[in-house]
């Protein structure tokens, strides 16, 4: 097994006084790609939010260690600087800030260095091309008026520029057409080229995974991981859905 990057133990969390995650155990090694699947309402996004530090969520128990440090007391920006990244399911629109300016600010925060404008622009341009986005995109206000697909591509662009050690993709593929899913998948592939970069891909759709190397698959049902296995689990979900797992969760509950 690869060197450990993230270790979550007995994590319980919820929102507005209601517990959603009932004790999550999860381990991700450096350079590994994990997939988290589960039906709607299982708590997948809650887990992603807890790891990133969503202020709306309350953590009621358990621990999480990220890159050797206790994750839960860290502020959101400290987690980001440490290498955590979340591709949001609904990226927020921020008027008046161009995507490019935002990216530059973010990179400078991440690296603590000033970016070189021309090198940076070149990198952004290459990535835009790779993600089949119009070069003029960089000048548009962050996420403002972006289509669903454009927002997700912009998230991939950020991921590829920020080069996190763990990228969590929260249903980055949902609501996208076939072409957009393929483009997002290409972005993820590009990210995987860095052998030390880890991924936690949250999805309930196998399509995005078909071209990707996957190390482990976790099935989340009703706030608990009910099964962990290899990539073969993806095919099984594709054929049978989550019905079998849901019964198991009920039995366990």
């Amino acid at each position: 097994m690869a060197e450990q990057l993230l270790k979550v133990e007995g994590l319980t969390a919820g929102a507005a006084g209601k517990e959603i995650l009932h004790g999550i155990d999860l381990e991700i090694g450096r350079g590994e790609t994990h997939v988290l699947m589960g039906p709607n309402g299982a708590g997948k996004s809650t887990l992603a939010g807890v790891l990133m530090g969503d202020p709306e969520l309350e953590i009621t128990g358990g621990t999480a260690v990220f890159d050797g440090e206790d994750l839960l007391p860290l502020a959101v920006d400290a987690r980001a600087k440490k290498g955590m990244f979340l591709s949001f399911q609904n990226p927020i629109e921020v008027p008046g800030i161009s995507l490019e300016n935002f990216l530059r600010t973010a990179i400078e925060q991440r690296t603590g260095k000033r970016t070189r404008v021309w090198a940076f622009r070149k990198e952004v341009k290459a990535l835009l091309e790779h993600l089949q986005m119009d070069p003029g995109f960089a000048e548009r206000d962050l996420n403002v008026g972006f289509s669903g697909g454009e927002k997700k591509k912009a998230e991939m662009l950020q991921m590829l520029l920020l080069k996190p050690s763990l990228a969590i993709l929260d249903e980055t593929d949902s609501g996208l057409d076939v072409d957009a899913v393929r483009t997002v998948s290409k972005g993820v592939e590009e990210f995987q080229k860095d052998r030390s970069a880890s991924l936690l891909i949250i999805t309930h759709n196998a399509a995005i995974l078909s071209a990707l190397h996957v190390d482990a698959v976790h099935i989340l049902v009703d706030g608990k991981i009910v099964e962990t296995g290899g990539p073969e689990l993806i095919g099984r979900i594709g054929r049978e859905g989550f019905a079998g797992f849901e019964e198991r969760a009920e039995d366990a509950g």
Partner: protein
Amino acid sequence: MSGEKTYVEDVDRAFYDFRNEEKDVYRVRSGLTEEIIREISREKNDPDWMLQFRLRALELFHRIEMPDWGPDISGLDMDNIVTYVRPDTARMHTRWEDVPAEIRDTFERLGIPQSERESLAGVGAQYDSELVYHSVREEVAGQGVVYTDLESALHGEYADMIRQHFMKLVPPTDHKFAALHGAVWSGGSFVYVPPGVTVEIPLQSYFRLNAPGAGQFEHTLIIVDKGAHLHFIEGCSAPKYNVANLHAGCVELFVGEDAVLRYSTIENWSKNMYNLNTKRARVERGGKVEWVSGSFGSHVSYLYPMSILEGRGAGCEFTGVTFAGAGQNLDTGCKIVHNAPETTSYVNTRSISKSGGISTFRSAVVVTPKAEGAKAAVSCQSLMLDDQSRSDTIPAMDIRTSKADVGHEAKIGRIPQEAVYYLMSRGLSEEDAKALIVSGFAENVSKELPLEYAVEMNNLIRIEMKGAIG
């Protein structure tokens, strides 16, 4: 930082020494007298008509009541108004150590070199600004453009032109502080752009206003003749510190047929200042005035640039941002008079309030019966950064024709928590995330400014946002 500007600190010590000897301290009298006005006029070497003008204005000043409708200005010592007009010059030539720490701190954060900080604080003289000013002046002179200080222009070949225009748009009868201005005005710029000339570089009054004591009752008179184009920029984002804390300047803009004048201001008076400034433009047929206005400083501001659209098809665009922090009550807005057919106006403002600051947007749109086919749109958005701060919108509309299209929208909001979370998830601190959101909110103004001013404005927002957390 000091490498960015050529500063000659040691040259011309004599200039300093001379000035230090010049410390006549005028006796403080209980009121503003004719004698004082005559003294000012003599010092300025006014033509006689100007002396008479000042004296009439003085009379009006004594007669007109204080405004009773806006933010509280009882902190102004009106019984000793003379101390604002004739501040103790020994104190004006203040030492760097006497400049309030808050201002020194801001200079530091803005990265302004020490020598320039001192001149901005009214401590030193700014050699290179003078140099830049002179070279700009020469450059545009080739196009026939006159760009000079108003006082010397009163004696030059444009003396008659000034006489025809001076305080014709803002007469001293307008309000008490316009009368005061008429009586004691001092310094300021005069610009004349001949017909058909496009001035490619923005002219900046910043070059002129940093002399100690200047910029308190300054008068700006700009005449843009038929078909000419000009961008004039007033102020800079470093705080302007004056010992006497009243600013009653006046700006008069004459925009000729088919001419375009853009007037940009980033104002950051120190936080003890009462800023009672009057700005007005008159626009002829097919002409256009574009106001770009950022108000950050002062303790209390009354600021409502007015545009009078006098000719068919004349237009006005007003883009503003006001940022009121702790201890600030900034009452800003604009007034537009549509007095000709098919005139258009577009107002787009943002106001931000934080740490108990009060930001009021006051607008007035007047459409006279002559203005058939006029179009006016007013949009005002406010952002309150906490629960102690206040933001008000007071729009007034006076429409005297049924054939006009007038619209108004106002929105008041707060920084969305999920946006802060989103930006923080990319590594921005909470403070930086909020500053970025506020900068984005004020982008209507920053995108209209030349790059260096936009950068300064965003720096200023960042500074204002420091400590906004919690």
